[in-house]
């Protein structure tokens, strides 16, 4: 035995010293101190408790950090279900609650926790997207009814206000709230050319960004075409580009365009955006398209289109709504002819949005695929002159109109008839041609100093185009952007404002133009009054001005970006009284069918507007409506099972009206 094992002499008396503990307070927690009133009533009836003289009313207070029973703030909870996803014991199920309001960014469901399974690990709290789910200091619950252990946490526990305990903090948060940075071309570099501003994600970055998604799907309801966003983001994370492409094309045939210039309501609705930066859904979509090789496209959608239903559809215009309608109609088996007045298909994607946002090759990639499945696109064919509307009606079984708003509008103020004044939609197509090289610098009528009127994205497009042209023409740029709206209510996106500022746009926001000052046939400037309000109490557009604050913004040229107008000159006299036009838009039912004319459908700006993705949804819906109308009429032949599947998928994905999320400003 070594010296470590030398024990003191043992004794039978020494243990008796412990008698002193009889007079000390117990350190443990006796039963009677831990039951709450409610549970005690139950337990008194239980055999084991009958004998004990439990004095019940003094529950021991748990520490501030206890992982006890849950509470859930329903105001904050968006029903994303992430708590249920992470739950290691599968104790949380999401239960539909149709009594909840149907709003963007929220799902009509709330978590129910089965306390027969819950292990109180608190991962649900750690991963909660909104911080609505918390744990309390309550830890005792007893009942004879096993069903009562399935509880839907609300703001209270057992109808009582309770103290919250374990809550999320920076360390315990299991979400990634920061967006993976997107590389942009520097402002000073990009203004010298039409190089695309956003570089796009590399594979590594795209996967990191995709890893932030919790797959809740609140985004989907806010997307006008209800894209399968969580699914295609997951494919990126799994590095399955083909799967992603397949997912995307089920609902959107213009992903290259939408991956660049979409208004991304999905990102506004994103669950991660409640507390952090939304997932870069738009850039991730673009990543799939940019990294999908051409031969991959062929695998997606070639077989079904070999089968044809004997019916023809004509489509006027080749913008997003028309291309979308064409794509799905072709997928449904129809022969489709698209007629485009301009030299290129694509509509607003080819002639509206600037090249630095959406380069031609991206538009072409989308259009080439649509062509490859058998859609005939006839460019340089104007309806009314090259082909008459009556011809369309006669030769085709159905007609879809997606001619868009392609006329610029100019404010009706003194001096606005000057030849140097242009509307945005008259100017932007020219800039696209200039960027392509089909128009020369001399042809571009841009003066050395310019005022742009308007606060939407299009106004920014005009201003940023002007900067590029001025720099090439004069070596320096001078562009001032003015709008009725101040920065807090500016309709343009935050990105545009930030990038525009980087590129050197000067801003004077909150002014209303009153007169274009013209001297000796030359524009001297724009007279403005301070705008005191844009919308009235009822939220209607009703601006008022303070005349005393009059200013003149000096400039040699003024561009107006105050909305666009349609051109309905191609609609023949015979139809004029049947096609009702309200505020520039054609009246039609939900699917775009013009009332009283079974064969005529509309979509895009002339029907619903206001953005590309809504136009794509119009096209999809109209395609399904046209199919409803023609399928029974057409001579059907035996169809393969695969074709039936594709047809069902197209009809199944028919989008519902989107929920519009409330926009969050990050600029101020």
């Amino acid at each position, binding site marked *: 035995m070594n010296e470590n094992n030398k024990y003191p002499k043992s004794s039978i008396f020494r*243990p008796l010293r*412990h008698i002193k503990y009889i007079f000390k307070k117990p350190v443990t927690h006796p039963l009677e101190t831990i039951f709450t009133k409610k549970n005690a009533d139950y337990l008194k009836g239980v055999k084991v408790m009958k004998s004990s003289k439990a004095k019940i009313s003094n529950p021991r207070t748990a520490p*501030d950090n206890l992982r006890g029973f849950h509470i859930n703030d329903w105001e904050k909870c968006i029903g994303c279900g992430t708590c249920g996803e992470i739950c290691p014991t599968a104790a949380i199920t999401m239960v539909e609650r149709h009594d909840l309001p149907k709003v963007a960014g929220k799902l009509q469901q709330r978590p129910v926790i089965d306390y027969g399974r819950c292990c109180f690990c608190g*991962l649900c709290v750690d991963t909660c997207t909104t911080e609505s789910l918390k744990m309390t200091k309550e830890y005792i619950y007893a009942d004879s009814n096993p069903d009562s252990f399935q509880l839907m946490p609300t703001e209270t526990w057992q109808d009582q206000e309770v103290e919250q305990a374990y809550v999320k903090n920076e360390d315990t948060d299991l979400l*990634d709230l920061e967006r993976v940075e997107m590389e942009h071309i520097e402002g000073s570099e990009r203004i010298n050319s039409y190089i695309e501003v956003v570089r796009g994600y590399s594979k590594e970055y795209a996967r990191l960004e995709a*890893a932030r998604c919790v797959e809740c799907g609140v985004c989907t309801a806010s997307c006008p075409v209800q894209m399968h966003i969580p699914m295609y983001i997951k494919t990126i994370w799994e590095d399955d580009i083909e799967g992603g492409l397949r997912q995307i094309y089920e609902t959107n045939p213009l992903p290259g365009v939408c991956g660049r210039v979409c208004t991304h309501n999905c990102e506004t609705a994103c669950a991660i955006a409640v507390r952090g930066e939304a997932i870069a859904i738009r850039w991730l979509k673009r990543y799939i398209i940019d990294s999908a090789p051409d031969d991959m496209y062929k695998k997606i959608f070639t077989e079904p289109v070999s089968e044809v239903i004997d019916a023809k559809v004509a489509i006027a215009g080749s913008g997003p709504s028309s291309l979308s309608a064409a794509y799905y109609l072709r997928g449904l088996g129809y022969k489709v002819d698209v007629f485009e007045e301009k030299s290129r298909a694509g509509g607003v994607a080819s002639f509206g949005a600037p090249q630095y946002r959406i380069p031609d090759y991206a538009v072409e990639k989308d259009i080439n695929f649509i062509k490859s499945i058998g859609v005939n696109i006839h460019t340089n064919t104007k309806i009314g002159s090259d082909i008459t509307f009556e011809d369309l009606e006669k030769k085709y079984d159905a007609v879809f109109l997606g001619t868009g708003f392609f006329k610029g509008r100019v404010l009706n103020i003194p001096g606005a008839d000057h030849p140097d004044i242009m509307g945005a939609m008259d100017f932007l197509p020219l800039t696209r041609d200039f960027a392509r090289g089909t128009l020369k610098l001399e042809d571009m009528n841009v003066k050395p100093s310019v005022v742009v009127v308007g606060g939407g994205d299009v106004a920014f497009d005009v201003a940023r185009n002007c900067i590029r042209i001025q720099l090439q023409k004069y070596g320096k740029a001078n562009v001032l952007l003015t709008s009725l709206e101040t920065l807090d209510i500016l309709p343009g996106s935050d990105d545009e404002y930030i990038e525009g500022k980087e590129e050197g746009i000067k801003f004077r926001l909150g002014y209303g133009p009153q007169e274009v000052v013209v001297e000796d046939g030359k524009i001297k400037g724009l007279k403005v009054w301070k705008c005191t309000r844009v919308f009235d109490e009822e939220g209607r557009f009703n601006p008022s001005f303070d005349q005393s604050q009059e200013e003149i913004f000096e400039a040699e040229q003024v561009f107006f970006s105050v909305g666009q107008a349609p051109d309905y000159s191609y609609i023949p006299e015979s139809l004029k009284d049947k096609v009702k036009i309200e505020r520039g838009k054609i009246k039609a039912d939900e699917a775009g069918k013009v009332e009283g004319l079974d064969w005529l459908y509309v979509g895009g700006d002339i029907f619903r507007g206001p953005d590309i993705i809504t136009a794509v949804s119009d096209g999809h819906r109209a395609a399904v409506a046209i199919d409803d109308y023609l399928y029974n009429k057409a001579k059907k032949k035996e169809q393969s099972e695969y074709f039936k599947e594709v047809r069902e998928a197209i009809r199944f994905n028919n989008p519902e009206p989107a929920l519009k999320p409330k926009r969050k400003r990050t600029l101020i």
Partner: protein
Amino acid sequence: MKEMKLFLGPQHPGMHGNASVHMFVDGDIIKRSYLLPGMLYRGFEKQMERKLWVNNIALIPRVCVPEPDINEMAFASGAEKLLKLEIPERAHWIRMIILEFARISAHLMAYGGLGGPTGNYTLMYHAHADRNNILDIFEKITGARVYHQYIVIGGVRQDLPKGIEKDMHTFLDSLESRLKEYRDLGIDNASIIKRIKDTIMLPAEVVWELGVTGIGMRSAVNKAYDIRKVAPYARYDQVEFEVPVSDYSDARSRLDIKIKEVQQSINIIRQCLEKMPEGPVRVKPARGQSMRWTVPKGHVYSMVESSRGEFGYYMVSNGGTHPYRVGVRGASYPQGLLGIEKYLPGTRIDDAALWVDTMGICSPEIDR
């Protein structure tokens, strides 16, 4: 006389955990015996493969109930090795505090376990009362009393709450002053000393034969084989402590070492509280939300010193969100399963409970 079969446990005051020792006795001498540890079997290792790296934290502590934190530590540090993840300095020190408190708590439970088979219940009550104080401290730090789920991949779940240091010091001082009382009640108590002295032996040959580690080994072979010393993890290389050893392993000697180790743990926690730097306590192992955290391909064996010996996790990752395979080296496997079968026979029935108690046996880690 006819051989009779008797069961020790699972429902027995002298049994530890959800196991049962099946004994074939002749008179009061055990002739044959074996352990049936599967009372708690839920396929831990297989279940771990089906849980994410992040939410395995809810399952792994259950591999050893009295001392759950070693599981969290072995799992987390293994994954960190695969991830090549440097965790914040403060997290190392907090982990040590947690692990040492867990060790004290497990030792107290085992030492108090002497009370059941010897009829000395006061000892058990006192040990459990002190253990209860540790659970209170755990509850304040981690939010739970038993399954703390606190040591996670990347550090610890959150920082220590304010003022907890004072609670710890108060408890450590009180426990230190009472260690002598524990000796008086237990191993130096003349009324039970015959039950534990020179009996329930663990010879050095058996240690080498079975691969016993921990106190069992240290008490028999006079070697300070302690993972904290031979392959230090966390910051055990920066604290001073002794590893008590002996060359004569009877029940009393092993219990004596337990009490000495409690003193060493007290010293370690005090040093931790003194040396612990301020700073962050957790880094995220990867970008993205936790359900998409992946661990690079590879395999790793990570070990910690539990109250019962070397406790290790062998983990294989195929680069996914779930572990591909986890194998647990339960510290009590050699003496618990093999020892009971081979070396319990020959002892008396009343020694069986003390055998199980002093050898350090935790049934779920045998049958995981």
